[in-house]
């Protein structure tokens, strides 16, 4: 087995890893403030990809508007729209569940997942539609010195990493971020200091949703866009979150990246286990470090 094969699978794994990182980061941010797990996170990822696809290929056909939303515009439009959906969901539904057992938030977002998935499955092929809007600049391959790698994938990795670390920096090192952390630590006291905690909660949920939408846009040119693309991913991300623990932002990012890498390498050394390796790692973590690698028991 050549070093090239291993390196290219590692990079492909890292590519998957940045999606894991972005999604588990969103889940962790939402969990921190709202104490709920957003099952619909996968569906929002799917939604982001579909917004990009519809904006590029179907606007004219469906609505008769001669407008095409290109890839770059999608990177802004899709997260905003998905974030808006997040605002609506949080304001109209989740808000009423905060006093109840946290499992109701999970069940609600599960229901929303079914709705979104079912809606798209009515109009789009379950086996996937390719996204044709990949920009010209990002096509082709780049020479990394030791191997060639698709330009778009490299872009997706770098772009996602920048977004992840910007989020981390924002939360850990800015004034607004410190208010957010105060809200996580003690919402009542934060509110007493005159900060609008309900607004923070809404915006946080919207931000997490937007991140998922953004990941969806980035994934669209790589994978074919399908109604089920989020569902299978989100369960892996749940395992990532259990492994990493949701205590820290950096923990969520790093465990996402690392597990994507592990998955990629498993594809080289023992392909049949590539689907399940993360779940088995979760089992090991549960056995030896039940709170998760970066977690503190809550």
């Amino acid at each position, binding site marked *: 087995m050549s070093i090239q094969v291993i390196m290219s699978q590692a990079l492909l794994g890292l590519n998957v890893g940045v999606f894991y990182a972005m999604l588990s980061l969103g889940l962790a941010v939402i969990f921190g403030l709202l104490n709920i797990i957003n099952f619909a996170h996968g569906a929002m990822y799917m939604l982001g990809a579909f917004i990009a696809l519809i904006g590029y290929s179907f606007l004219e056909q469906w609505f008769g508007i001669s407008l095409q939303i290109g890839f770059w515009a999608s990177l802004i439009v899709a997260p905003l729209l998905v974030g808006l959906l997040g605002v609506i969901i949080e304001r109209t539904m989740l808000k009423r569940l905060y006093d109840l057992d946290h499992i*109701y938030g999970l069940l609600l977002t599960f*229901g929303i997942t079914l709705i979104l998935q079912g809606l798209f499955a009515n109009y789009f092929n379950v086996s996937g539609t390719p996204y044709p809007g990949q920009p010209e600049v990002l096509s082709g391959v780049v020479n990394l010195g030791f191997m060639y790698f698709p330009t778009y994938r490299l872009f997706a990795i770098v772009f996602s990493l920048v977004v992840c670390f910007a989020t981390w920096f924002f939360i850990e090192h800015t004034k607004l971020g410190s208010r957010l952390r105060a809200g996580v630590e003690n919402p009542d006291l934060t509110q007493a200091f005159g900060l609008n905690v309900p607004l923070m909660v809404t915006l946080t949920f919207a931000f997490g949703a937007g991140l998922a939408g953004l990941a969806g846009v980035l994934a669209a040119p790589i994978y074919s866009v399908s109604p089920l693309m989020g569902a299978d991913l989100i369960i892996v991300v749940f395992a990532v979150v259990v492994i990493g623990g949701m205590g820290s932002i950096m923990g969520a990012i790093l465990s996402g990246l690392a597990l994507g890498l592990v998955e990629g390498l498993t594809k080289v050394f023992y392909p049949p286990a590539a689907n399940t390796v993360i779940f088995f790692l979760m089992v090991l973590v*549960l056995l030896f470090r039940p709170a998760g690698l970066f977690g503190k028991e809550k």
Partner: protein
Amino acid sequence: MTNRILFIVMLVAGLTAPFFAYPVFVMDLLCFALFACAFNLLLGYAGLLSFGHAAFFGGAAYIAGYVTKEWGFGPLIGILTGTGFALVLGTLFGYLAIRRQGIYFAMVTLALAQIIYFLALQMPFTGGENGLQRIPRGDLFGFIDLNNDLAMYYFVFAIFLVGFGIIYRTIHSPFGEVLQAIRENESRALSLGYDIDHFKLMAFVLSATLAGMAGAAKAIIFQFASLTSAHWQTSGEVILMTLVGGLGTIFGPVLGAITVGALSHELSSFGSWVQVILGVIFVVCVMTFRRGIIGEFQHRLERRKNQRET
């Protein structure tokens, strides 16, 4: 008192159902009813939300199917083996999952169940995407031919009653009381000296085992074990059934399974809209109807009784 009336209603309905409705359809409902009852034992009484019960339901179906089809054992042995498999798997998953609480518990069970799903997809003996087909129904005790739908029906109804009886006895035993104490206040139950993890694990194993029994029976009825049974959406469906019927009520899951099952059946011509409608019911239930049908009924009954007394 209400429980006794409801039980008699259920018994009469169960015994006469195959004369009014298509027996295979009613058998399907019975399997899901038992599945939902088993799930309810865990969520409704022990307060543990498992998002991975499809692993036991679907896993047991594959094992039961394999044992009867490839090894030529009868349906009873097949179902018992499937159930036994669910017991072992439940012990394993339960041991791992109870290390985390609340929302993490749900995520862990979901992820563990996904292992079973992928194994079912990839292992050589499960038939991959096609599933395990043409499982023989065989003879019960050597002389009752289960290829007769009516005979099969009463066999399944008997299985359902056994499972239901076990759950009923468990809930109304001291063990069940402790489970409810843990659900209400885990720290207090711990301070009273109960070994909480032990109780949770027992509840998990029992729930998984009975879910497996339902899945194994389903494989024999339909002569087919498929990936759908092991898919996470099946785990979601059983949650919905329990929620619609009434979480933590004896008969709620049965009624919920019938409601959701009949609805999916009626709507099956609408394709993916079924999923949308189930999703909407999910959302509506969580937002406004958390007691479920039976729970709401009991609540009203109690309130009226209280009003009369005051």
